[in-house]
């Protein structure tokens, strides 16, 4: 019997365009790019020049603060360019890939014989470290600190999130190896969050971890929520987190001795014609996924990650190494809604009782009107205001935190209050729903991100 944690706080947003459970094909663009901005907090020092040959696993840049922290090429090929913008800010490093991948040789270290320190330096060298993140501050883990525990959530509850039971089919051996490696990096436990009531959930068979089952609406699948319930972070403590698919990188590294960053991502959203899963590599261009598979005639927004906490990108940009989803929605700039605030707006989904949504989702009305398709676009649907309504955020944040007060501390830059009110425990993605429901249309994830950066700067 595992421990089950239930909550009713949160919100599942009904949105169309879930990926069918089939892997369409492998999409890896001829030119891949490493974008330093995607590795939040890293100050890049470039290690290659245009024309250099790299293999999959060759360091392309490293962090100026932790010089042993490499970011490596996911492919073998030739460095095309090191692109810089204003004030010589590094934009990206582009690599023209070979048809057949050549892998850097890491000597196939055996996990059993390695100590925690040796595992750490191997992961840093091989460029897998950036996939290990830490709380507080939601940044790449500081390799010089020891975490009190490590958390992995095996499921994602965000809108149209990929199904990891499907993605990991046949790869659980690598996942297990990843767990075994991480277990040596902490004196505490490795926690695996598993979704309750899923038939034949393969994650329940994983060994060497503390399994907790969770039940409830989004954001219960967020690792931050799970940490808050199981082993909350106190001042001075560090917890590490790793995404499910990124665990495979660690597993493959110790099982095969190579850097194999293949992952599966889901192309989802209401503007995708045939939403599907694709095999790809981080750094692949966005365009090949999209071409011919999205609705035409309206301005579109491409999002890496999920629709409530992802990054908006241009079609010519490259895949974020942390994204397991590409989301396409209507940008909404060509919609001119007359007296929108006063209209019934039957096609709009609201978490409030100010629209007919909650009523129309009741069984009785579903029988009469059928399933109503809600329409979504990127407009914020109102004007930015001071916080007026109370108890909005609390209802969608299942954490022992008073969100309004934490946000106010963050907005005013009061670090003492941020510490006292749970600033160490929160990450932007955890407040994504707060931002969705906010009547005052505040950019809460940006507020949290900037505040965490400020805390890190002042307190470390």
């Amino acid at each position: 019997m595992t421990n089950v944690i239930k909550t009713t706080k949160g919100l599942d947003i009904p949105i169309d365009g879930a990926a069918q459970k089939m892997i369409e094909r492998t999409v890896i663009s001829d030119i891949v790019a490493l974008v330093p901005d995607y590795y939040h907090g890293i100050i890049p020092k470039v290690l290659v020049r245009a024309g250099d040959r790299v293999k999959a696993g060759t360091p392309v840049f490293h962090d100026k603060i932790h010089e042993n922290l490499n970011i490596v090429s996911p492919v073998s090929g030739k460095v095309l360019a090191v692109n810089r913008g204003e004030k010589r800010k590094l934009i990206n490093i582009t690599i023209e890939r070979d048809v057949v991948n050549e892998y850097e040789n890491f000597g196939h270290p055996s996990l059993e014989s390695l100590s925690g320190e040796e595992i750490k330096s191997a992961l840093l060298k091989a460029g897998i470290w950036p996939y290990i993140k830490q709380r507080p501050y939601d940044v790449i883990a500081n390799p010089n600190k020891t975490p009190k525990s490590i958390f992995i959530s095996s499921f994602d509850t965000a809108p149209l999130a990929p199904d990891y039971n499907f993605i990991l089919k046949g790869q659980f051996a690598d996942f297990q190896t990843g767990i075994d490696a991480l277990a040596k990096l902490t004196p505490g436990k490795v926690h695996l969050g598993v979704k309750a009531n899923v038939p034949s959930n393969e994650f329940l068979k994983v060994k060497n971890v503390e399994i907790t089952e969770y039940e409830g609406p989004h954001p219960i699948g967020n690792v931050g929520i799970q940490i808050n319930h199981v082993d909350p972070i106190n001042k001075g403590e560090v917890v590490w987190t790793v995404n499910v698919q990124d665990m495979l990188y660690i597993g493959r590294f110790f099982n095969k001795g190579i850097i194999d960053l293949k992952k599966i991502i889901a192309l989802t959203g209401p503007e995708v014609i045939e939403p599907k899963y694709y095999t790809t590599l981080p750094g692949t261009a966005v365009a090949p996924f999209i071409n011919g598979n999205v609705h035409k005639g309206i301005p579109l927004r491409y999002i890496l990650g999920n629709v409530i906490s992802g990054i908006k990108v241009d079609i010519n940009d490259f895949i974020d190494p942390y994204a397991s989803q590409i989301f396409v929605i209507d940008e909404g700039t060509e919609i001119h809604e007359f007296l929108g605030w006063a209209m019934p707006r039957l096609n709009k989904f609201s978490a409030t009782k100010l629209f007919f949504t909650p009523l129309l989702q009741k069984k009785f009305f579903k029988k009469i009107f059928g399933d109503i398709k809600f329409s979504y676009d990127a407009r914020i649907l109102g004007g930015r205001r001071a916080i007026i309504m109370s108890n909005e955020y609390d209802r969608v944040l299942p954490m022992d935190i008073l969100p309004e007060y934490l946000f106010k501390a963050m907005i005013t830059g009061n670090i003492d209050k941020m510490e006292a009110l749970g600033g160490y425990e929160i990450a932007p993605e955890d407040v994504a729903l707060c931002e969705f429901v906010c009547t005052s249309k505040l950019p809460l994830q940006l507020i949290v991100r900037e505040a965490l950066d400020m805390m890190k700067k002042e307190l470390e």
Partner: protein
Amino acid sequence: MDMNALRNFMDKIKPYFEKGGKLEKLHSVYDGFETFLFVPTTTAPKYGSHIHDPVDTKRTMSTVIVALVPALLFGMYNVGYQHYLAIGQDVNFWTEFLFGFLAVLPYIVVSYAVGLGIEFIGAQIKGEEIQEGFLVTGFLIPLIIPINTPLWMVAVATAFAVIFAKEVFGGTGMNIFNVALVARAFLFFGYPTHMSGDSVWIRTGTALGFGGGNVVDAFSGATPLGQIATASTSVPHITDTFGHSLGFWDGFVGLIPGSVGETSIIAIMLGAFVLLITEVASWKTMLSVFFGGALMGIVFNLFGPDTAAAHFPWYNHLVFGGFAFGAVFMATDPVTSARTEKGKWIYGLLIGCLAIIIRVLNPGYAEGMMLAILLMNIFAPLIDFYVVDANVKKRISRAQKSIQ
């Protein structure tokens, strides 16, 4: 079709209001109208939530206004009803309503004209978008004043409240006091002779020249609470304008003298229903105000001094005067109320208790609700402080345990 034409028209005149345009000084006015007519096409930033709930402050505020409409309509009718009763004329329903409509309308016009005017100027000075907060305030003010209040006083009080209770604090969402109640308090303390006594509650004169007549002999315009406060015996006997006894159900229906929108519990309950099913107001605050009032009323009934006010049955306290209106529409103002869920219980309870304490123990203030809410507005942040502090302390003790 029409909508497109309107959109094109708005786009066409837009340049005049932008920087360097001829009407640059009216930019916030244009902006206010544009966002009123069309949902702004502002889109989500690069990082963050890319979709948003369709709820916005316009929707929330207009729901409060919808909730206030029954109280306004009943209030208009009651103003006419009381007027024709006082002048002893027997007229039909529509004549009564028309009189009330004509009597109340100028207050609505003055309240909105003054308040929104100041808001537009403020928004223009600060270079901000016009905010919706005053839409509710402007509607509340005519409902909480006696019908014989001079219009210029309403204008002065509204201006005072908007400037000193709201704009100086930073606008909607930043104010400490309920703005409409500040306007009411300004009238009450600034012009005490006009705001109390028996002559202010019933329009005995005309409304915009309509419905003249002479007041009949037996007439007395005192409100039930006024009668209680000035009672010469300790028997809490209340009567209507002609000396007939009044009871609980008279207060419930509301055909009695009082502030325009405050008399009918039926109309207020309709509003409460709207606010509660839409969850715009907190049921916790609302319920705890009534609970606190009932509790304090019972305490005075059982143990109070031997005065008419203390003997006034506790259930009558809840249906006479501004108690119910304050509980439903004022105490639940999210900005000035306690904001934590636990805090809302305490906040509401104290408002209810205080309102009855003031009514019973201070004969100078026949109506305690206004002062109770304004006083608790000050204490709301303190109540929240202790709720938040409990969360902070829990985190500290957790940290200490983990060190051991």
